[in-house]
């Protein structure tokens, strides 16, 4: 097997001049040679017997099935479980690059936390006109019901999932922040378990940074939030239930942390304290790791028809008897419009230059930005500010004229509801794809992004690597799990392992 099998991109790059429009291949340089940090892995897969390569996908799938690592797609009428598609070719990140990312990510989340403490408190950044007041106060994610509530150490965000993309020049950019209920870390942990079974010799030889301490770290961060001064604070994970697409993760994390998994009906607030309903009576809860959105968290404060939360929880938090992670109201910090101001936030609160650049973001409420974007709509990605999960996103270059016309109309009707970003040619990575016309599976380049997970506790920590999401359809840039993406294991090499 030779370099041909790693995908047409390699051949193109060998034959043609390097075009700046071509995405970066993370495993192979423009000349088609494996990048130094990837050489061992590249060689491993390039020299693998095609039969073994073909079986890898099935073996991994079977392992996931047996482990019950499943995922429900929204919109599937039967709520059938699917195995989250997994690609066995690992993505490598050398330690030097990782260290820079780590610093940038921690800086970012520190600024977001400062921002949240500010806008739910004094609002200095609004007074000083750095961020438009109406953008914040008018955002549906700004929770008036949470105004004045200060989490311990002002840690509004305990768990953050920051989506990164890599441009054609190899630089990482922040595409989006996720600071409400970011998910995916369970796949990171399960992927590593599978990879250890599939490629034990590779993992051992490369000295890949371990990820398995994440649940312990998460538990420590959660306990740090406890308002009661007791030796063993009681932590619980609140899940919307088994039909939620991320239920597996809720189960997995509660199990790994050794804490109770609860649904709304298992909880009750009495005297502004939160309790679990146990067979032998009530048990007080100190910290709730809630994987339920603000809207559904408390029928007294938010949606009254919600059965997923518990009545009076907001009051209990305000009374200082229970903490939730992430805090109520963090959604305003990962609003797509507010995103444009994040570099300014870093400068404002930390007095530092942002270490990680963001993808250029145009707020279409601004007439100049709107004019620029509408003049060349086909070149941009249009995102609605109220949505998440990739729905409602229109990718200009891939949209039909009719679709572009619809988007234009929507923007004209409600410009404040949209932002635009230039299309980033996400980097690509060799991915095991089904063979064509009866041929065995083979490696083809597919677009990837990266979601590292940041834990803010007494000591900020970033999970080594994170979830590499891969768009499985050829040419597709949509990596979201809810729309048919898959994942790869991400290997951050230990110091001094950049050349193997």
């Amino acid at each position, binding site marked *: 097997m030779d370099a041909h099998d790693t995908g047409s991109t390699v051949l193109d790059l060998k034959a043609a001049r390097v075009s700046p429009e071509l995405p970066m291949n993370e495993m192979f340089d423009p000349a088609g040679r494996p990048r130094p940090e990837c050489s061992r892995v590249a060689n491993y897969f390039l020299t693998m017997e095609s039969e073994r390569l073909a079986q890898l996908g099935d073996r991994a799938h079977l392992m996931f099935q*047996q482990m*019950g690592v499943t995922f429900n797609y929204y919109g599937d009428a039967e709520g059938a479980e699917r195995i989250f598609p997994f690609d066995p070719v690992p993505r490598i990140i050398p330690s030097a690059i990782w260290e820079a990312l780590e610093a940038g990510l921690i800086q970012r989340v520190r600024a977001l936390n400062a921002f949240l403490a500010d806008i739910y408190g004094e609002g200095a950044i609004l007074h000083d006109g750095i961020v438009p007041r109406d953008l914040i106060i008018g955002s549906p994610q700004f929770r008036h019901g949470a105004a004045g509530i200060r989490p311990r150490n002002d840690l509004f965000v305990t768990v953050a999932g920051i989506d990164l993309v890599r441009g054609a020049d190899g630089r990482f950019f922040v595409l989006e922040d996720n600071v409400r209920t970011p998910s995916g870390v369970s796949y990171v942990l399960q992927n590593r378990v599978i990879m250890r079974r599939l490629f034990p010799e590779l993992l051992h030889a490369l000295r890949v940074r371990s990820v398995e301490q994440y649940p312990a770290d998460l538990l420590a961060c959660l306990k740090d939030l406890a308002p009661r001064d007791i030796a063993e604070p009681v932590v619980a994970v609140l899940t919307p*239930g*088994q039909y939620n697409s991320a239920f597996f993760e809720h*189960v*997995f994390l*509660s*199990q790994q942390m050794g804490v*109770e*998994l*609860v*649904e709304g*009906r*298992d909880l009750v607030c009495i005297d502004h304290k939160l309790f*679990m*309903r*146990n*067979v*032998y*009576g009530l048990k007080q809860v100190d910290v709730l790791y809630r994987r339920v959105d603000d809207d559904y968290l408390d029928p007294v404060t938010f949606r009254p028809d919600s059965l997923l939360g518990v009545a009076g929880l907001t009051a209990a938090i305000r009374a200082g008897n229970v903490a939730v992670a992430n805090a109520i109201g963090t959604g305003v910090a990962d609003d797509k419009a507010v995103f444009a101001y994040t570099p300014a936030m870093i400068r404002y609160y930390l007095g530092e230059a942002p270490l990680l650049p963001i993808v250029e973001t145009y707020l279409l409420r601004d007439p100049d930005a709107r004019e620029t974007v509408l003049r060349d709509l086909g070149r941009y990605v249009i995102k609605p500010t109220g949505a998440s999960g990739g729905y409602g996103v229109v990718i200009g270059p891939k949209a039909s004229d009719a679709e572009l016309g619809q988007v234009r109309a929507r923007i004209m009707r409600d410009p404040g509801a949209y932002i635009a970003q230039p299309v980033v040619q996400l980097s690509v990575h060799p991915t095991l794809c089904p063979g064509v016309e009866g041929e065995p599976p083979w490696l083809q380049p597919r677009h990837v992004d990266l979601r590292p997970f940041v834990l803010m506790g007494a000591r900020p920590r970033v999970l080594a690597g994170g979830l590499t999401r891969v768009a499985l359809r050829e040419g597709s840039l949509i990596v979201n799990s809810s729309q048919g993406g898959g994942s790869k294991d991400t290997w951050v090499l230990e110091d001094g392992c950049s050349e193997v």
Partner: protein
Amino acid sequence: MLRSIADHLFWAARYLERAQWRARLVDVNYNLLLEVPPRAADPWDPLLKITGEAESFGAHHSVADERSVVNFFTLDRDNTSSIRSCIERARTNLRAMRHQIPTELWLEVNRLYLDAIDWPADALALGSIPAFFAALRERFYTISGVVHNTMARNNAYDFVRVGTMLECADNVSRLLDVKYHYLLPRIEDVGGAADIRQWAALLRSASSLEVFWQIYGNAMRAERVVDVLLFNGEVPRSARFCADRIAGALERIAARHPADGPALGQEKLVEMLAGSSAESVMRTGLHEFLLAFQDECAALATRIARAYMPVD
């Protein structure tokens, strides 16, 4: 343990036990009809009466024959107590809390579920009915084996035990109630081959035929059948056996309470049986006794739910 977890375990156990009883009832009756020309016009009628589903069946089917009854009891998705539905419900209950049960147990129940959702819509497509039920029987035995071999003897196990045994007690008493009257012999049939086969079938529905032979030899008499299935505490499907196990499990659950466990009056169920006998009950009225027994089972279930499970 969360009250909702107790609820899930209890009901998963009940649904699995219910599915097993349905499977045995259909299987035995099917085989019986192969051997014995039906005495009554509606040979499947007693089955519908045992499960209390005659009305529900009548709403969807006009004729009670082998095909429609097997469909109704085994495959029908609209019948909440069909074997398929019971398996589905058991699995749904376990899935909500699968991190708290042994992985092997989850995998075994889920495997059965994945097969059950693929069963055809019509009994005709099942292939050999006897083979189908034989295979199903093995799956239930496996699940039972996994429960007993992998679950720690804690509250989770005991709630499973209570659910299983309550469902079993309920089913064996209903089986006796209906079958007994159906089998109430005409003088000319007592001791006849058909009569004996019917009693044997009844015992087989409760997996207790060979146990009967061990105790009484191959000599069927109504009173003996009642004794084995109601009063003999050594027979695993007898009402007495179930009542003893229910009481034991509830005692253990209460004993684990940090303070005083609730008094649920589970002894009453045991006393009903310990304080009586087949001879006595058949003299005073089997049907009345069985009704009272079923009522007490239901009342106990309500008290258990109030004490340990979520109140809606």
